[in-house]
């Protein structure tokens, strides 16, 4: 498109269609955040659980949670800022994904805070998995990526089961939930992103 010239009505529609098709990239995600948080939560859950089971209820492994979640928070923030700078276009789907993630963050904060104060860890983790599951299912819909939605459903089911599980056996439940909901879909998303970028 170098200089202005008279365009016909059909050319007008063709221009519109052509430009719209160029924006229909869908929302692409490289899976980084799913893998980051998936592995951090998986490791925290297992580091907490294993010493507890092998060393007569030793809770030293519980320190993994504040340490690993803090690392996740810092890395996520840095990554988010850098990624934001690289984006040339912000789509409505991106905005939906951000808002959904924000809602999940608020949900997690509320669940942990009030869970610690008023109930047991299995109940808290059960609700956490319900929150994870909702976020994964919605993200999967926005990204049009079915494995994330399957992971979401797995989290819902495990979350419901966790309410009936005695402490500390909710920990391997949550490890499995993030494996199915974050880690496996995260690797699949990463592979899809690489394939589309090639």
């Amino acid at each position, binding site marked *: 498109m170098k200089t202005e010239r008279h*365009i016909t*009505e059909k050319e*007008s529609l063709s221009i519109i269609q*052509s*430009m719209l098709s160029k924006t229909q990239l869908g929302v692409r995600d490289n899976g980084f955040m799913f893998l980051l948080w998936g592995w951090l939560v998986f490791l925290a859950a297992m580091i907490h659980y294993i010493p507890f089971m092998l060393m007569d209820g030793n809770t030293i492994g519980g320190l993994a949670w504040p340490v690993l979640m803090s690392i996740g928070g810092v890395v996520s923030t840095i990554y988010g800022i850098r990624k934001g*700078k690289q984006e040339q276009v912000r789509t*409505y789907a*991106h905005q939906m994904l951000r808002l959904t993630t924000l809602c999940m963050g608020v949900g997690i904060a509320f669940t942990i805070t009030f869970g610690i104060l008023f109930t047991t860890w299995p109940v808290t983790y059960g609700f956490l998995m319900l929150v994870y599951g909702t976020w994964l299912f919605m993200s999967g819909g926005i990204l049009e990526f079915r494995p994330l939605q399957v992971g979401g459903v797995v989290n819902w089911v495990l979350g419901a089961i966790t309410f009936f599980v005695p402490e500390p056996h909710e920990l391997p439940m949550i490890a499995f939930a993030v494996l199915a909901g974050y880690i496996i879909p995260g690797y699949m998303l990463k592979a899809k992103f690489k394939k589309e970028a090639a």
Partner: protein
Amino acid sequence: MKSFQELDPVLHSQLRLAVMSLLIAVKEAEFTYLKEKTEATAGNLSVQVQKLKEAGYIDVEKSFRDNYPLTTCRITSAGKKAFNKYVDALQQYIHKK
């Protein structure tokens, strides 16, 4: 029957229509994105973006990123209305032909 002359002259231009078509689909886009997708020269695109801004159809935000100038464009509600009206008029014109 609507004639061509009734189509919005601001939108009835190859590059301006292309820019509006891109912006109607996204929340906002940088100048470099618009340039890449329209394959226009920077100078020509800049002129057309200015015309759209003067018509009130887009907002243009100038800022800096890593000390480089950054221009971000987004369609206004007036721009969305004008675009939809243009498309309706176009479709009516084509169907009646």
